[in-house]
């Protein structure tokens, strides 16, 4: 859509207000139905057998004893998934990940599945399945995996993006490079150059609802899938192809979703449930246990980042260079690519180069986690900015302001920026009372910036006016955190009717055209753009109907405040017609009033944030406490400010958990040692302070209301903001996330030892 609104001058009536969400009552009374809350007549219980080994060949699988157990209705293994004819390597990886083919690649990799009359029988059947493995050497650490002598996980993995393609297989699946200028010259021009290595542990999205679905395929090949997902249209497309079904005959209904954060953009058990249903000719319910969620659904990458930056004594960054190694699990991904693209995106740099390496390891397949790959890169970059500023005796915030990207800056990943919010978030941070508040003993303050692209993509919406003039907006993007309220506000705004008269509904895949996932902060951005177009189509239709009723030219009909007005002096005898009036007479003017739009939502506005935090460190134990936290972020236009704040706070809290505590811990045997919330400890209520927020609104010129995605950027700065705060509190540079008490203590001791030896 064009720049059809003078965004900064627009006065909104509904957008920007804070009404209660339409799905709220169901969620506070227990009525809302999530993935595991649905049942079908005659449904079986599905259960999956998983590998106890990090890396092994499957020599044989004997299911004969399990098949004979009374109550077992179907067993599937990789043999039941036909890969012939499937050419998309990504889809082949999904199939292999859902059900291991020749090898198991990680502790928790699925090898067989059972559908039985109840959970007890299914569990007993799993114990009767005999799998013979030949153990192989494994590697779980990102830096170990790139060494020449590391066990090669996939002997057909020849690094892409290198010319010529290497003749020898390795664990580096892809190399990608971004940047411009000449970094060697840039480092020559610097007064101070610092090089460091930063590492981040592997964290999980940690949504409270485990993956769950109910699958049903009848003998006619028509099927249904009820599932908690961030993208039911994508799930339909992929499941239909995997199962060999007609896409139109598979109806996928998205349940209420108990958190996703990227982790529910991917298939884990759904094709298995469908295959079991197909084989048993009965509906199958399959719910992952929490342990399985940790072991076998996709966490984010573990990373190791080598970074070098140079600065003049006046604070100009002359060159920035990084090699970013990201684990992608046993299959190729584009996680390092995203890290390499986002790393330096906050800054206006003359000379910049990033190289991303996708590294295969014996860990579960990496999946998106809120602004995927950006937080780790920001940890390295924003830590370096603080250290460089310290070395030249400049305040870190001033150095950031001096080097911040602005409109017209060529970004480090290529495109030239339009109007952006990095500068304004930094100015707001500088003026924020938090920046000048006094600190207590053993406390340090840190700040950091973050960037995320935001996505657009395919969206499709229907607007239907009911006979009483109320409106239903039907969308195909699922609502993870209040999107229905936001979309209803946008429709109310566009039609000119009260929010309470709009109902936002999420359609199943049989009721609307294709929609991309709710990912990349695109849900509200893209669906609102499509919803506005749907409204405008309906308004054009209603103006025509009013013109017909008044017997005047349609050009003389004006739409304002939810009513058609007859323009021109000669028409002043016509009282305005409301939507309700027009709906009442719809039968006489052309039938039901509706609007529809199908769009590719181009022009998602990039998003920036600046965070400030105060951390207290106990120097004797390394224990940390988050004393104060402030999030400042550009929302473009905050449709429902309370839910925008919620996104800012939630992202910050996830980042705090990752920065201080969360990490996959693998034993020598390659098995995950902490697959539960007791040992993989996410922040609890008593770990956190209130999280202050400040919403900035720098309109996105590509959206009719100026909206930008807001969901992800808030997780980008926390690792670095906390790293800088801990470093300032302890006077020791933190380079390894999570900064758990033992790790902080070790860093303090190492620094003390090195200070002692240099004193000698």
């Amino acid at each position, binding site marked *: 859509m064009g720049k059809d609104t003078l965004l900064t001058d627009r006065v909104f009536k509904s957008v920007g207000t*804070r009404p*209660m*969400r339409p*799905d*709220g*009552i169901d*969620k*506070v*009374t*227990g*009525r*809302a*139905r*999530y993935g*595991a*809350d649905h049942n079908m007549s005659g449904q079986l219980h599905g259960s999956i057998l998983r590998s106890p080994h990090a890396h092994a060949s499957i020599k044989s699988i004997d299911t004969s004893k399990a098949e004979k157990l009374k109550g077992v209705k179907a067993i599937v293994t990789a043999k039941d998934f036909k890969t012939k004819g499937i050419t998309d390597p990504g889809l082949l990886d999904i199939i292999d990940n859902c059900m291991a083919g020749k090898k198991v690649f990680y502790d928790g990799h699925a090898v067989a599945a059972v559908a039985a009359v109840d959970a*007890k029988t299914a569990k007993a059947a799993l114990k009767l399945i005999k799998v013979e493995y030949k153990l192989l050497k494994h590697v779980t650490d990102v830096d170990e995996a790139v060494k020449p002598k590391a066990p090669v996980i996939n002997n057909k993995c020849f690094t892409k993006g290198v010319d010529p393609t290497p003749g020898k297989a390795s664990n580096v699946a892809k190399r990608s490079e971004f940047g411009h200028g000449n970094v060697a010259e840039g480092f020559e021009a610097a007064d101070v150059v610092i090089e460091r290595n930063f590492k981040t542990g592997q964290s999980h*999205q*940690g*949504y*409270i*609802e*485990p993956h769950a679905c109910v699958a049903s395929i009848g003998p006619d090949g028509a099927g249904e899938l009820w599932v908690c997902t961030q993208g039911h249209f994508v799930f339909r497309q992929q499941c239909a192809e995997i199962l060999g079904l007609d896409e139109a005959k598979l109806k996928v209904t998205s349940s*209420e*979703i*108990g*958190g*996703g*954060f990227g982790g529910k953009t991917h298939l884990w058990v759904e094709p298995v449930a469908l295959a079991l249903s197909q084989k048993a000719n009965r509906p199958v319910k399959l*719910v992952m*246990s*929490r342990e399985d969620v940790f072991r076998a659904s996709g966490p984010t990458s573990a990373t190791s980042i080598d970074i070098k930056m140079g600065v003049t004594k006046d604070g100009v960054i002359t060159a920035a260079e990084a090699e970013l190694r990201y684990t992608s699990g046993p299959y190729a991904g584009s996680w390092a690519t995203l890290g390499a693209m986002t790393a330096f995106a906050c800054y206006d740099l003359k000379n910049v180069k990033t190289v991303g390496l996708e590294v295969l390891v014996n860990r579960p397949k990496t999946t998106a986690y809120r602004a995927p790959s950006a937080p780790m890169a920001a940890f390295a970059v924003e830590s370096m900015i603080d250290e460089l500023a310290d070395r030249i005796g400049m305040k870190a915030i001033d150095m950031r302001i001096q080097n911040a990207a602005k409109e017209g800056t060529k970004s480090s990943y290529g495109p030239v920026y339009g109007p952006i919010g990095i500068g304004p978030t930094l100015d707001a941070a500088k003026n924020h009372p938090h920046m000048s508040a006094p600190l207590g003993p053993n406390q340090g303050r840190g700040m950091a910036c973050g960037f995320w692209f935001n996505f657009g993509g395919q969206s499709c919406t229907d607007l239907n006016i009911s006979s009483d003039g109320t409106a239903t907006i039907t969308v195909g993007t699922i609502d*993870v*955190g*209040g999107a229905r309220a936001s979309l209803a506000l946008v429709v109310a705004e566009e039609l000119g009717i009260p929010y309470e008269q709009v109902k936002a509904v999420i359609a199943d895949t049989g009721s609307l055209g294709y929609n991309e996932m709710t990912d990349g902060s695109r849900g509200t951005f893209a669906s609102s753009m499509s919803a506005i177009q749907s409204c405008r189509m309906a308004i054009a239709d209603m103006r025509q109907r009013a013109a017909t009723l008044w017997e005047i030219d349609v050009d003389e009909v004006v739409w304002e405040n939810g009513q058609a007005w007859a323009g021109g002096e000669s028409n002043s005898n016509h009282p305005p017609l409301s939507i309700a009036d027009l709906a009442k007479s719809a039968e006489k003017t052309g039938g039901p009033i509706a609007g529809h739009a199908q769009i590719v939502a181009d022009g998602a506005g990039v998003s920036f944030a600046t965070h400030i935090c105060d951390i207290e460190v106990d120097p004797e134990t390394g224990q940390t406490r988050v004393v104060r936290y402030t999030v400042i972020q550009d929302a473009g236009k905050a449709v429902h400010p*309370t*839910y925008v*704040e*919620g996104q800012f*706070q*939630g992202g*910050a*809290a*996830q980042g705090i958990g990752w920065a201080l505590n969360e990490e996959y811990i693998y034993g020598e045997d390659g098995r995950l040692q902490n697959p*539960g*919330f*007791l040992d993989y400890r*996410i*922040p*609890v*209520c*008593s*770990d*956190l302070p*209130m*999280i202050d927020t400040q919403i900035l609104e720098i309109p996105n010129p590509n959206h009719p209301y100026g909206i930008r995605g807001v969901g992800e950027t808030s997780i980008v700065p926390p690792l670095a903001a906390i790293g800088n705060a801990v470093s300032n509190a302890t006077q020791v540079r933190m380079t390894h996330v999570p900064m758990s008490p033992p790790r902080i203590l070790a860093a303090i001791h190492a620094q003390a030892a090195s200070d002692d030896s240099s004193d000698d």
Partner: protein
Amino acid sequence: MSVLVSSTINGDNIEFACEPDETLLDALRDRVGMTGVKEGCGTGDCGACSITLDGALVCSCLVLGAEAEGRSIETVEGMSDGNTLHPLQQKFLEHAALQCGICTPGFLIAAKSLLEKNADPSEEEVRYALAGNLCRCTGYDKIVRAVLDAAKQMRKA
């Protein structure tokens, strides 16, 4: 062999049959149909399945269904008084204290249990009382505000 259990659930006399080793969580969800009680972990770490058993706050995944014999259970389904929401439910909505909402039933039950013992909790007391309930969406800020606000309103009533 199933066991027959007679209990009071949200004030109603309810009988259900369950396996001797079946959790109360599974019995409530699968036998009684109370799917407002959520499973997030099954190991007592997340609090999504919080209920009260004879007034005591418990994770229903750590209690056997058979243990409910003769006892009184309260779940989120029983919180509102007819069409009138409990002040906690109302304040959770007003403060947007839920995003995805999967943890909400557990938080509401845990918060209600807190306010029954302590009508005027400090922010810190709320935070420690709710530390057994995990929320991954909100960062807890709006949950704590909603509970403090509900407590204030209930004290006035």
